[in-house]
């Protein structure tokens, strides 16, 4: 049986709007500016391509030539730091919790929700963001990431979001929704830097202050891994102090 919609049985305020009427618009104008999907596709940002300097300016121009395929772009203009950390096709990429990596990075979605009073807010699932970081760290750094690893060294003890205990490389992700943030005081972060300099351990403290997005996160991970390449921590389990 079809559900009945709630109907109020007394006179309604709309009855006072006698001069007005609900009239569907038959030919309303549409915006000239593109959707994000169209914009990013034209700018060459969807499909793993690298941003081109002229991308923004040409994105709305129908006559602009399409960007070259992603592989072609990377071959034409390799980013210097990438070369150090990108695995070659022959080598095996890393793992996450002992599992081989999926071919493509896990996705996370920033969506709008709530907004009953006031505008909707951006929301996301932190676990999905961390899954993306795990994959990126493992893939780009050829690491065997263990998630929520019990890290303990020089008086710092916490469950680190992702860590390779053989290579002593890992990360801790925090954003505005994360309670863990309070734990990472200046002193703790100073220790991360110290360990990095001393080639004991390399921990990326990855803080996203606004909404997480794959481009920003990947950029930070690549930058970090490039630095790790120059100051690679000694392999083997950290001696507890």
């Amino acid at each position, binding site marked *: 049986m079809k559900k009945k*919609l*709630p*109907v*109020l049985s*007394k006179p*309604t*305020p*709309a009855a*006072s*709007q006698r*001069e*007005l*009427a*609900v*009239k*569907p*618009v*038959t030919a*309303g*104008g*549409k*915006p*000239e*500016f*593109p*959707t*994000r*999907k169209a*914009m*990013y596709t034209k700018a060459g940002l969807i499909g793993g391509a690298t*941003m081109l300097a002229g*991308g*923004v300016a040409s*994105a709305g121009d129908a006559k602009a030539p399409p960007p070259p395929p992603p592989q072609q772009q990377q071959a034409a203009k390799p980013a*210097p*730091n*990438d070369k150090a950390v990108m695995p070659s096709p022959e080598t095996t990429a890393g793992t996450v919790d002992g599992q081989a990596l999926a071919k493509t990075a896990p996705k996370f979605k920033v*969506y*709008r*929700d*709530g*907004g*009953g*009073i*006031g*505008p909707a*807010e951006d*929301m996301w*699932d932190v676990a999905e963001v961390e899954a993306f970081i795990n994959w990126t760290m493992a893939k780009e750094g050829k690491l065997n990431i263990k998630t929520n690893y019990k890290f303990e060294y020089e008086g710092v003890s916490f469950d680190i979001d992702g860590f390779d205990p053989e290579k002593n490389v890992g990360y801790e992700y925090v954003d505005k*929704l994360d309670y863990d943030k309070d734990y990472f005081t200046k002193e703790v972060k100073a220790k*991360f*830097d110290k360990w990095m300099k001393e080639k004991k351990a390399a*921990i*990326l403290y990855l803080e996203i202050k606004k909404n997480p997005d794959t*481009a920003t996160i990947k*950029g930070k991970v*690549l930058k*970090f891994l*490039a630095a790790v390449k*120059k100051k690679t921590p000694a392999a083997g389990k950290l001696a507890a102090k």
Partner: protein
Amino acid sequence: MNALLHLTHDCNLRCPYCFTGKKFDREMTIETAKKTADFIIEYAKEHGQRAVFSFFGGEPMMAWPVMKELVLYAEQAAKAAGVVALFRMNTNGMLIKEDHLAFFEEHDLIFILSIDGHEEMHDSERVTEGGVGSHAVLAKKLPMFLEHNPGLMASVVITPHNVRHTAKGIAYLWDQGFRFQIIKPDVTQAWTREAIAELDRQYTAVAEDYLTRTRAGHELYLNLLDDKWINHAKGAEGLSIRCDVGSSQISISPAGNLYPCVRWVKEDEEGVPNLGNVFTGFNPERLAEIRAASGAPKQPCGDCSYNDGTCANECACEHYSATGRIDTPAPALCEHEQVIVPIATRVGNTLWRERNPVFMQKLYPTLPKLIQIRTDRNDHADDGANP
């Protein structure tokens, strides 16, 4: 879950357009408040959501002791449950003092301020029980509020009575330092053809002013324009910026009863069905019914070319208040949208043609970030471990 909590039915103002019913002294008890917190956190945990506590009213600051205790309790309970709790409030600001702001700061409670523009506009609707305008008291507090939160959002209601002040009122708020404004027309009032024509003149002036300020580099948010653009830019995903009664949001009365929307919380009067209460949980049959009805197509809108997420016709409860049916928008809403949509499109097109950096950043935020990454990679400026 976004839970809108009515901590009290009382208010220190008597705005004629208020849709939350009679004002009388009835507060949520501490016991109910704690039970409410547990209910929201449990639901959020079960559904993998954040627990958003939005205090509403009446004026929630009139129930300050309850609010304070609820925040402290919910914060701990959420932490124990591994759920993120966020606190929000809609307030007229009249009772907020520095001590309160310190508490808000400490507990990350963000409030939206109800203020209808400059004095003439504000005082034409927002008055005390004795009919005295409330702007003078509020105006003195604005610098303190904006220092506390530079991102403070203003909530403005437009009625046939105050519409003629709209452009000046909104400009006043920009000038005071507000960068975020939500404009909401009250479509349950007796709008006339002349009032709609005035609305058109005022919105045109608002849009010109917005354009000028944006060109000068000010990053502003005005829901009337920005939401239309973002909905378009996000395509089908943009439709998620819409009302979602009974699913991701719920309203809770001082007695702990659950309603689909703030507009329906009238302490169980007029036979408005509730969806259960925090002590016994949701009534599944009623919940399913309201969800289905909320998602049903709007009766007269089928072939309208704005019925693609452009029109703000999604608020089922607003329709119910205005027309008595949750699937039928008010004529005033339709006319309002026919005024604002072409204006929003025109301004958006202008900023797009100019490739205005503020506009581009708002609509296509990923672009500059990727440019930045490329720059970082190429110039080796910083090899630090923790960017």
